[in-house]
C-alpha cells in the first residue's frame, strides 16, 4: 500500500490560488479513477478536481471556504502500489487501537505527538465528527456560564474534542445529556424549535464563501475605487419591438428566438465605434487605460449560486442572430454551472438586465476594471407626447454607469444617446458604415 497525494492542479492561466468550495468525498471514502473529489473556484469559474487513481481517502487538506495555493496537497489517498508520496509527506500516522482505555471512546487516539502535527485529520477521521464551525459558533448559554453536564458526558465530549460550551443542553436547568451530545455529533448546535409567534432572536451565521465571496470582493473594489456617473434616458422601443416580433415570426426553426439583448449588443458595438473609450479597462494601479478594439460584452446573469457574467466575444464581428445564439448558449452554460473560466472572463463592457424585474431606474455597479455598464430597465407601454397628443408607446429606460475618471459626462451622454437613436430607428443598426 502506498500513499498518493493529489495537489491542486493549475486551474487556469495565471491562477495562483483557488477557493475550495465543496468536498465530494470524506476521509474513509473509496474513490474510483476520475471520480470528482472536490470543487474549487477561481475568480471566475468553478473547477472540479477528479481523482487520477483508485484509492481510499485518508486526509483532506482544506476546509470548505479555504483558499488553497496551486500545487499544495489537498487529498491523500491510500492506494495499492507505491503511490506518489515521498517520505516527508506521507499520510498522518494511523491511530493504533489501544486496549481497554479506548473502549469508551469511539475515536481512535493518535499519540500526542501526531495530534499536534495533524490537527485536521484527527477530528475528520472520527466516526462522529463534531459539528461544522458555522453551527458551532453559536453559544447555547449565557456568556461565562459553565456548561452543566455529568462527568460521563464531560469525558465523552473531551474524548471527541468537543467543547461543551458550544453544546446546547435540553436537560433540567440546561443540563447537557448524552442525547444532546449525540445530537451535536450528528447535526451540530441546531436552534431549538420555537413556537410560531415567539420572538425569533436567532442569528444565522452564513459564511461568505465561494461565488458570494467573489461577488462581494468585486463589488467592494468597484464601489470603493470607481467614482461613477449614472446617466438614465428613456428609449422608445415601439419600432424595434415591431421588427423583433416580425423577425421572430419569420425565423428559421433552427434559429433561437430573438430577445432585445442582441439588438442592444449590436447597437452598443456601433456606438462604441464612435466612443471607443467606453470599451476599455482602466488599470488604476498602473495608471493605464487599455482601449480594446474588440467588443466583448459581458451579460450579467442570475444563477442559483449568484451572479455570473458570461462574455460574448467580438460582438463587433457578429451578426444579430449570431449574438442571439451565443447569448442563449452562454446563459444555459452559466445556469448549469458548466461555463468555462474563459467564457466567464475577458469582457470589456457589461450589460445588466433584470428583465421584468428591471424597475424604472437602477444604479448599476461597473464591472471593474471596465469603465462602463449598460443597465436595461423594464419595458412598458407609457403615454408619450408626440407633439399633438399622448400616444401609447413601448418605452424602456437605460440606466448606464461610467467610470468618471476616464469617461467625461459629455462622452457618456453621447454614447447613450447614440444607442437610443439606434434602438429607436432599428434599421440604422443594420446599415453598414
Amino acid at each position, binding site marked *: 500500500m502506498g500513499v498518493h497525494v493529489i495537489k491542486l492542479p493549475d486551474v487556469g492561466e495565471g491562477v495562483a490560488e483557488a477557493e475550495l468550495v465543496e468536498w465530494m468525498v470524506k476521509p474513509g471514502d473509496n474513490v474510483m479513477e476520475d471520480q470528482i473529489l472536490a470543487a474549487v473556484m477561481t475568480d471566475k469559474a468553478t473547477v472540479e478536481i477528479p481523482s487520477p487513481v483508485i484509492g481510499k481517502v485518508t486526509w483532506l487538506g482544506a476546509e470548505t471556504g479555504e483558499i488553497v495555493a496551486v500545487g499544495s496537497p489537498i487529498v491523500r489517498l491510500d492506494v495499492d502500489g507505491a503511490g506518489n508520496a515521498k517520505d516527508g509527506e506521507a499520510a498522518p500516522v494511523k491511530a493504533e487501537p489501544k486496549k481497554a*482505555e479506548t473502549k469508551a471512546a469511539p475515536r481512535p*487516539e*493518535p*499519540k*500526542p505527538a501526531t*495530534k499536534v502535527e495533524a490537527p485536521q485529520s484527527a477530528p475528520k477521521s472520527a466516526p462522529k465528527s463534531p459539528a461544522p464551525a458555522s453551527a458551532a459558533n453559536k453559544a447555547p448559554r449565557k456568556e461565562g456560564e*459553565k456548561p*452543566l*453536564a*455529568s*462527568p460521563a458526558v*464531560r469525558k465523552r465530549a*473531551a*474524548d471527541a*474534542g468537543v467543547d461543551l460550551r458550544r453544546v446546547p443542553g435540553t*436537560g*433540567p*436547568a*440546561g*443540563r447537557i445529556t448524552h442525547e444532546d451530545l449525540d445530537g451535536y455529533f450528528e447535526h451540530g448546535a441546531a436552534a431549538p424549535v420555537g413556537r410560531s409567534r415567539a420572538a425569533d432572536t436567532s442569528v444565522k451565521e452564513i459564511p461568505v464563501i465561494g461565488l458570494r465571496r467573489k461577488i462581494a470582493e468585486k463589488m467592494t473594489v468597484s464601489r470603493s475605487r470607481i467614482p461613477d456617473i449614472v446617466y438614465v434616458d428613456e428609449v422608445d422601443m415601439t419600432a424595434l419591438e415591431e421588427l423583433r416580433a416580425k423577425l421572430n415570426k419569420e425565423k428559421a426553426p433552427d434559429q433561437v428566438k430573438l430577445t432585445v439583448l442582441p439588438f442592444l449588443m449590436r447597437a452598443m458595438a456601433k456606438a462604441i465605434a464612435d466612443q471607443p473609450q467606453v470599451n476599455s479597462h482602466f488599470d488604476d494601479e498602473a495608471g493605464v487605460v487599455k482601449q480594446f478594439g474588440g467588443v466583448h460584452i459581458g451579460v450579467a446573469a442570475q444563477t442559483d449560486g449568484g451572479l455570473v457574467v458570461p462574455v460574448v466575444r467580438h460582438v463587433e464581428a457578429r451578426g444579430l442572430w449570431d449574438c442571439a445564439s451565443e447569448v442563449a448558449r452562454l446563459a444555459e452554460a452559466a445556469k448549469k454551472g458548466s461555463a468555462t473560466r474563459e467564457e466567464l472572463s475577458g469582457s470589456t463592457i457589461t450589460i445588466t438586465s433584470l428583465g421584468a424585474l428591471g424597475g424604472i431606474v437602477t444604479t448599476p455597479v461597473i464591472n471593474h476594471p471596465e469603465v462602463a455598464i449598460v443597465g436595461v430597465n423594464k419595458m412598458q407601454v407609457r403615454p408619450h407626447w408626440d407633439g399633438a397628443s399622448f400616444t401609447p408607446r413601448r418605452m424602456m429606460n437605460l440606466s448606464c454607469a461610467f467610470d468618471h475618471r476616464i469617461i467625461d459626462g459629455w462622452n457618456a451622454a453621447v454614447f447613450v444617446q447614440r444607442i437610443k437613436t439606434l434602438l429607436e430607428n432599428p434599421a440604422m443598426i443594420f446599415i453598414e458604415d
Partner: protein
Amino acid sequence: MAELTCKVLVIGGGPGGYVAGIRAGQLGLDTIVVDAEALGGTCLNVGCIPSKAIIHAADEFEKATHFANSSALGISAGKPKLDLTKTVAWKDGIVKRLTTGVGGLLKKNKVRTLKGWATFADGKTVDVKMADGVQRVHAEHVIIATGSIPVELPFLKFGGNVISSTGALALDEPPKNFAIVGAGYIGLELGIAFAKFGSKVTVVEAMDRILPTYDAEMTKPVAKRLKDLGVSVILGAKAKGLSKNGKALEIEQNGKAENIPADKVLITVGRKPLTEGWGRENIAIDMDGRHIRIDDRCRTSMNGVYAIGDVTGEPMLAHRAMAQGEMVAEIIAGHNRRWDKIAVPAICFTDPEIVSCGLSPDEAKSAGYRIKTANFPFMANGRAMTMEAEEGFVRVVAREEDHLLLGLQAVGRGVSELSAAFGLALEMGARLEDVAGTIHAHPTQGEALQEAMLRTLGHALHI
C-alpha cells in the same frame, strides 16, 4: 550509579503522586515515583489517616467515660483507662498497612519507586539522593507532587514541648495541659480528640472565630460541643512564645498578657506548599504567591513539567491532589483532559463533623446568584435521635430560577459520609427536585438531605 530514564517521573509519593503513578502505570507509561519518606505522603503517614485513627480512639474512650457516669441508655461501666502508646501503635499499624498497600499498587502497575530526596538538575533531569548514593533520572515528563509542610512560628519553633500535628499523633500520653495555637480544622480535630482523652485543652486563635473558612451557622454546633467538652477557646488572641520555665504559653489578648499552662504546645496555624529544597531554583517555573502556578491541565510554566496537590495551593486536600494526579497521567498519555470539576468537598472531622461541598449561601450570593436556601435539623431526624446525634443540620443552596444545586453543607455526627451524596448531586448537575424525588432509605441521617431539598421547595414533610 547508572542513570535511569523513564517517561514519567513523579516527585512525591503522597496521594497526588502515587495516584498519578498508578494511573500512568495503568496507561502503560514507564513511570518512576520518588519519595524520601514512606509512600503515602502526609495524608497516610502523618495526616488524614493517623488523625482519624486517633479521633476514633478518642471517641471510643469518651463513650466509655460517658458510661462511667450514669447514662440515659442504661449502660454503666467502670472508669476506662487509656494507654496512648498502644493507641499510637495501633494507629501506626493502620498506617503501615496502607503505605505497604500503596507500594503494592504501584508495583502491580509496573511503577518503579525510588526512596530518596529528589532535586531537579534541569527540567528533565532529577538527582535522587538515596541511601547508597545519588541516582540520576532522566524523564520526558515530570510531575511535582511535593506537598506541603506545617507552618512554623518564628517565636514558637518546633522542638521540645512545641509540636506540630505530626508530633501530636505520636505522643506517649495525653498532655495534662494542652495548648493549641490556631483554631483551624487541624487544631480543633486534635484538640477535641485530646480533650476526650482527658487533656485540659486551650485553643488560642488570632481571629475572632473558630474555623474561619466556614460560616458561623456551620461552626456554631462545634463551638457548643467545645464548651461541653471543657475546651477553652480564646479568640482574638496572639501567641507570643513559651514562658521562661517552658510550662506555659504566653499570649496577648486585647493588649493584656496572659499565661496558659501547657505541657505541650501544638502549633496548627496552617500548612504551606513545599517549594524549597528540591531544586526549584534550577528550573524556570513561575510561582503564584507561595505556590506553583498551574493551568487547568496542571501544567507549569515549563514544558513537560506538571504540578499537582498541595504544592499548587488551596484547597490543600488529598482528594483534590488524587484527581489532579489521575488527570495529569491521562494528559501525558495523550488524552484530552481539563480540570472541569464542579466541587471539591471539604470535611472537618471535628465533633460534630462539618462537610461542605460547593458554594455556601454567602459565597453563592457574592458570586452573583439569586438563591434559595434552607436547612433541615437532625433534631427532626429519627435516626439521629436514636444515635444521640441531634445536633446539626443539612443545608441546601440552590439557584432560584432553575433550582440547580450550587452547594450542600452539613454539620452533625458522621456527616462526613454525606460528602459522597453531596459531590454526586453537584457533579451531576442535580436540581432540588432531583434529590427531593429520590427515595432516601429510612431510618438514616441521609433523609435529612432529602428533607432539606423539600424544605427549600417549601414542603418539608417532617418539620
